[in-house]
């Protein structure tokens, strides 16, 4: 009491009576608020999950795909009352942070999320570049992160202990369409490869290049170009070499630019392979019946696959629930993101960890994730424990798809085939005059 009286007296002397009372009142108020908020954080009956993804910038399209995938899982699990751990159910709450399509912004966002918002674990970014920025943060603070998107093999080479991925990296999947095409008639003899200059797209292009060499195709050219380039000059050069296949690693906007530039110079190879993009409903809506018709791509999941689990039911039921909410067809990225939640669920149930998770529990969660082997509506989820694809879901096998008149069909493997391949691809003049 004496000390408080002395404090107020001193303050009155320096700043006057009224400001002194205001200052002390403010200090007391802030202290109470802090105490209350600290108490609130300590006693939480829900899992707080941080989502770091690109909600703006060049990767905003993909970032929003991942957001929908993660949200779909959260809605489904909360509809059932939450994650069941030791007989009690705990709901989940997602908190979002925008990586702005920038690795540094992603790292800052993850850091804030972990330190200020004390998330239990993280759903990872859309892009490989941002994932590579966030992974060291997850490692530093020992917060497990599973990404439902990033496909660059670079991520797994670093052997981050706290980072996992439900999608197989592109060096494993890019082989599928190239190998498939070399089995068709007329057998293609050569390929030109273009990769956009970002970790995922370059890795996709490298995957096409390596697959081409393994299957005996002559690689006429391999070019890495900046995003948003004008492709007409490059494609003119490629057209001069007359490759049978054009393979492109990039995001939807660059893929559309490549298709339009090819059409403008009347460059119509026997096949055009693109990854990522053709599985996105928006891409097919825009160019699926015109420039993008008969483009071949890769998917790791299909709503028609014979897969199911207890949370979503069958793959088709997942797709229907997604379409009902978003009025959009889900692609494999959204499905993989929804599956990340199922991976965490299995791991949490294994260790019996209730929210909020302590640092020790997060380390145990990481070890539990390493050991899971589950079968979901998306397919198997089983993270590699060693090797070049450390912590990647490398068991999942890709399917080859083709866009036909605006719709996407599986053309390989035979057990999932929905449509015969259209090969060689009709020239652009015929495709565009169909409209």
């Amino acid at each position, binding site marked *: 009491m004496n000390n408080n009286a002395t404090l107020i007296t001193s303050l009155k002397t320096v700043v006057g009576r009224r400001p002194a009372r205001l200052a002390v009142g403010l200090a007391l108020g802030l202290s109470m608020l802090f105490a209350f908020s600290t108490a609130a954080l300590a006693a939480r009956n829900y899992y707080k999950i941080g989502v770091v993804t690109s909600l703006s910038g060049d990767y905003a399209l993909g970032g929003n795909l991942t957001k929908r995938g993660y949200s779909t899982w959260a809605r489904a699990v909360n509809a059932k009352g939450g994650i069941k751990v030791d007989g009690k159910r705990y709901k989940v709450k997602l908190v979002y942070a925008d990586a702005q399509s920038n690795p540094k912004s992603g790292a800052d966002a993850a850091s804030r999320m972990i330190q200020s918002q004390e998330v239990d674990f993280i759903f990872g970014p859309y892009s490989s570049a941002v994932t590579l920025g966030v992974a060291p943060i997850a490692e530093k603070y020992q917060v497990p992160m599973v990404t439902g998107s990033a496909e660059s093999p670079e991520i797994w080479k670093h052997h981050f202990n706290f980072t996992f991925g439900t999608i197989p990296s592109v060096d494993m999947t890019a082989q599928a369409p190239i190998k498939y095409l070399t089995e068709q008639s007329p057998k293609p003899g050569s390929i030109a490869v273009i990769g956009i200059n970002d970790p995922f797209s370059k890795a996709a292009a490298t995957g096409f290049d390596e697959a081409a060499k393994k299957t005996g195709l002559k690689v006429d050219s391999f070019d890495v170009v900046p995003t948003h380039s004008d492709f007409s*000059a*490059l494609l*003119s*050069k490629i057209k001069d070499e007359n490759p049978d296949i054009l393979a492109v690693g990039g995001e939807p906007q660059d893929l559309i630019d490549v298709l339009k530039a090819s059409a*403008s110079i*009347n460059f119509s190879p026997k096949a055009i392979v693109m990854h990522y993009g053709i599985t*996105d409903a928006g891409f097919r809506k*825009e160019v699926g019946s015109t420039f993008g018709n008969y483009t071949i791509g890769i998917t790791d999941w299909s709503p028609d696959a014979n897969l199911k689990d207890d949370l979503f039911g069958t793959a088709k039921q997942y797709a229907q629930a997604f379409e009902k909410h978003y009025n959009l067809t889900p692609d494999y990225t959204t499905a993989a993101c929804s599956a990340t939640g199922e991976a965490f669920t299995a791991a949490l149930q294994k260790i019996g960890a209730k929210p909020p998770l302590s640092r020790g529990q997060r380390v145990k969660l990481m070890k539990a994730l390493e050991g899971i082997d589950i079968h979901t509506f998306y397919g198997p989820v089983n993270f590699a424990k060693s090797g070049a694809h450390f912590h990647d879901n490398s068991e999942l096998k890709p399917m080859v798809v083709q866009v036909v008149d605006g719709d996407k069909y599986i053309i390989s493997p035979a057990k999932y085939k929905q449509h015969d391949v259209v090969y060689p691809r009709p020239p652009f003049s015929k495709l565009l005059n169909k409209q």
Partner: protein
Amino acid sequence: MDLFLQTVINGILLGGIYIVLAAGFSLVFGVLDIIDFAVGEWVMLGAFAAYFGQQYLHVDAFVFLPVVFVAFFALGYAIQPIIFRVVSTKTHLPMLMGLVFTFGLSTLMKGSALTAWGYNPRSLDTFLSDTSLALSIPGLRLFAFVFAVAATLLFIGFLYRTRTGLAIRAAAQDRDKAALMGVRVKDLASVVYGLYAGMTGMAGVLIGAIFSLSPQMGAKYTTFAFFVVVLGGLGYVPGVFVAAILLGLINTMTTVYFNASYSFLMVFLLLFLVLIIQPKGILGRGT
């Protein structure tokens, strides 16, 4: 030899698109002392105006060229008084204020477009999309080039052959003296900004027909507009022709004969060299 010829033609055609984009931008700087950061977003809005027009009316994208010009002229004419107020001499550091204001305008345009139209890239189709002439010259780009050059020549003709054009050039030279001579600078400023918005909107239609569209496409064209205008000489509209063609040629030559990853490097290296050796632009006639 064919590949070399094709590369040169591709470069010239590419540069042609940037001419109409940069001509208006150069004029706005010369007359109004405004460095318009929103130039890329005007391009984006022009492209989307044609896109939605095509979606709803099912006509070729090029039908919207005059429509976009008129609509964007009106929009630019309406917005200009606000910009004029920001950059009037009563403001401290008017040029900087103008830059900041147009940066804010750019952010508003981009954010509004993203919110309204989402993130998916779009495609604008025309009857020339798959037309290819001798040497694989893209018919679409040739049309865009011819249109862009014609529009810019008309614009320069307007500036140098009409009384209003004379008044605009007088105001560009010395605003105060022009006002003393009876030129209504404020009204003229609205006409100039309207012309700029109209021309840039039309550039957007052409660009949207050639490339994909997205609400975030503008940043690249803002960079190119700056490059062309600075290289051609700030405020000197004819300089834009040379600079734009040079930009296109550097782009295509680097891609074909060197490495596509270095095309931006080469473009900006040239810009730095010109700024060091000839700061008034490549023809030495800029401000």
